[in-house]
């Protein structure tokens, strides 16, 4: 099935749906709702099968790879949609790689049909300690935790890395949401107090380091794609504004000082696209694939954040108001830069990989 779906067509369908169901007015109005995700929109995209995109065909999904998920995340970024799909997609990859047959059966059907939303703890978290029948500890700053019904947390069991799949409503689990500047996504700290642990909750990866690298790769591609979408959306909105706003008797888009900045942003985003497409087009599991993903993440999230930053300035006073859209994208862009490794952290890893090559 996966070979029969054209990525371009898929991408168009994501964008078409979101531009109809999550137009700019909704994105601008959303911060006031203060909900961790847009529940109605989630139901609609679940019915369309979006969470099942990367679930293997054997488990009832569409079995699509990173090109498809990158297209999805680019569309989410373009619409600034409050949908916790990154946590869910990472959970799918984790369960597919490390889950037993039973665990796959139990967890993947809910993730695929959207009835379950997941979060996955991200390095550099301190792993929980598993040494008995109950679990205690805190995992700070987990993306998508406030909207999750299942929590995937890294843990240490007698010196070996395991992953725990804990229902969010299990006895002893509490999730404290921290409000973010970016209201389109949510983050929370997970506290576990005497949570009773069953073997069904424990996923044992064969190669934990390879799994962590793969999760990082997937997150990096998704965030780079999200940033690319957001950068393009905020630039489009800004160009529209420059074409109608008049000062000194002419539209401000005719001023060369503004035009040249816009041209640089456009060129930078076109260059950034190649990095996302290249990283998304590679098979996982190799150092090259990880290098491409981290390169895309550090570069594209940076470029998009710079574009969004300048788009507020290009709007002038209205850019500083919550009624106009640029701030939605600036906040989303800044969060993309910070998630799953800041630029400095990633650049250090990239330099290591370049030296090892």
């Amino acid at each position, binding site marked *: 099935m996966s070979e029969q779906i054209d990525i371009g067509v898929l991408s168009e369908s994501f964008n078409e749906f979101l531009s109809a169901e999550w137009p700019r007015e909704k994105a601008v109005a959303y911060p006031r709702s203060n909900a961790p995700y847009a529940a109605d929109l989630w139901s609609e995209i679940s019915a369309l099968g979006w969470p099942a995109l990367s679930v293997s065909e054997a488990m009832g999904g569409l079995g699509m790879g990173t090109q498809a998920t990158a297209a999805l995340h680019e569309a989410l970024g373009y619409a600034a949609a409050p949908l916790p799909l990154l946590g869910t997609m990472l959970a799918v990859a984790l369960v597919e790689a490390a889950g037993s047959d039973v665990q796959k059966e139990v967890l993947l059907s809910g993730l695929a049909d959207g009835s379950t939303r997941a979060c996955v703890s991200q390095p550099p978290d301190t792993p929980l300690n598993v040494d008995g029948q109950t679990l205690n500890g805190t995992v700070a700053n987990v993306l998508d935790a406030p909207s999750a019904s299942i929590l995937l947390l890294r843990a240490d069991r007698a010196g070996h890395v395991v992953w725990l799949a804990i229902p969010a409503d299990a006895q002893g689990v509490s999730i404290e949401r921290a409000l973010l500047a970016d209201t389109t996504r949510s983050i929370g700290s997970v506290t576990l107090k005497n949570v009773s642990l069953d073997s069904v909750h424990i996923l044992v990866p064969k190669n934990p380091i390879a799994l962590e690298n793969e999760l990082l790769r997937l997150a990096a591609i998704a965030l780079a794609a999200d940033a690319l979408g957001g950068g393009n959306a905020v630039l489009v909105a800004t160009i529209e504004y420059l074409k109608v706003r008049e000062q000194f008797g002419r539209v401000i888009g005719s001023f060369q000082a503004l035009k040249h900045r816009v041209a640089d942003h456009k060129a930078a985003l076109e260059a950034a696209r190649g990095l996302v497409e290249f990283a998304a087009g590679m098979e996982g599991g190799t150092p090259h694939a990880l290098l491409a993903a981290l390169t895309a993440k550090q570069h594209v999230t940076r470029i998009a954040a710079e574009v969004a930053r300048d788009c507020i300035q290009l709007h002038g006073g209205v850019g500083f108001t919550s009624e106009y859209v640029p701030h939605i994208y600036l906040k989303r862009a800044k969060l993309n830069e910070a998630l799953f490794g800041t630029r400095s952290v990633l650049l250090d890893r990239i*330099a290591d990989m370049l030296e090892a090559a």
Partner: protein
Amino acid sequence: MSRTYDILGKVGNEQAFRQEMRDWLAEKAPKNWRQIWQNVRDSALKAEVVKWLTERRAVGLGTPHWPKEWGGPGLPFAYQIMVYEEFSRADAPELEMFGISLFHTPATLFEHGTQAQKDKYLTGITEGTDIWCQGFSEPGAGSDLASLRTSAVLQGDHYVINGQKIWSSGAYHADYCLLLARTDANVARKHDGISYFIMDMKTPGIEVRPINQITGEAHFAEIFMDDVKIPVANLIGAEGNGWNIAQSTLSTERGLLIFGEVERLARSFQLDGQDARDNWMRDVQFRREYAALYGELQSVRLMIKKLLIELEANPDKASPTLPTYIKVTWGPFLQRYTEFLLRAEGLQTQKWQPAIPGTSHSSRLRINDFLNSYGWTIAGGSNEIMRNIISERILGLPKG
């Protein structure tokens, strides 16, 4: 143990083609050419370049991107790309003063030249050693090229040319010039009334003066034309259509030519990092900057690859905007990277040496490469003009 090489015979088998090229390059590519070329100029340099061109001709790779019809090997586009990749990989030198002859002249004549013009001039390139230059810019017409004022007046069977050209690379040694001149000054739109000529540089009335550049080299020259006679047969295309034909000439800079340059830079980028293992790669700040520049370099390479894939699939359907994005990204990247190396490597980069011809922008003489990087931000339409093109023609912002 010289053997005969049949590179062109391997078309159809990528692996074998590349291997044959590598074997041939290992034996026949000039040795120690950087040291030798650094110390010769003018006719002595031309002799060195011609030696290498002759080796290339012997295996059919004198003009790798030309069709069979005009003396090229008629390689499928994918193989043309491989040829330039392998040249860069082997650090084989570029053909220096033959750039216009190999790229701009054919790009112009293939599409717009008469049969007689093609027969006469393309043969002079494939079989001879004709050097061509380009006479486009003028002191009053740089970025605003269409304002050019050099005049061409029809008198019987020839045009009489008067005016001045500038920034003409290699003009001092050129045999022919691709010349833009105004045949009609009374036009509503200044782009009209421009015509395109082939000018024999030995014609009386031509004076060429080299321009000393910030690099210490004198690649450029001014061309002064005082009642220079050009036969009517040397008009390319229709009178007044020069502006459109010039677009074909310039489009050649944005395909394989830039690809070869960028691949060459990618190779020296890697060497720079390796050579700095015990030096600035141990400095956390420089190391990060290098890793960030790697991302920028990759983004340029990937745009060019995308363009080449599109050109291969269908030249008429290739993105018209991608070349502009490549130009506006590549130049500033090159400038940032070469400037980074000055900061990373410190005082020793400031010692002056003569440039190394044939290395394009990757001589690895730090200060030279840095100074030379303006070649991509100013020449061929300055990046400020590129930004106007992006904002006005692509994004639809109004003219100021």
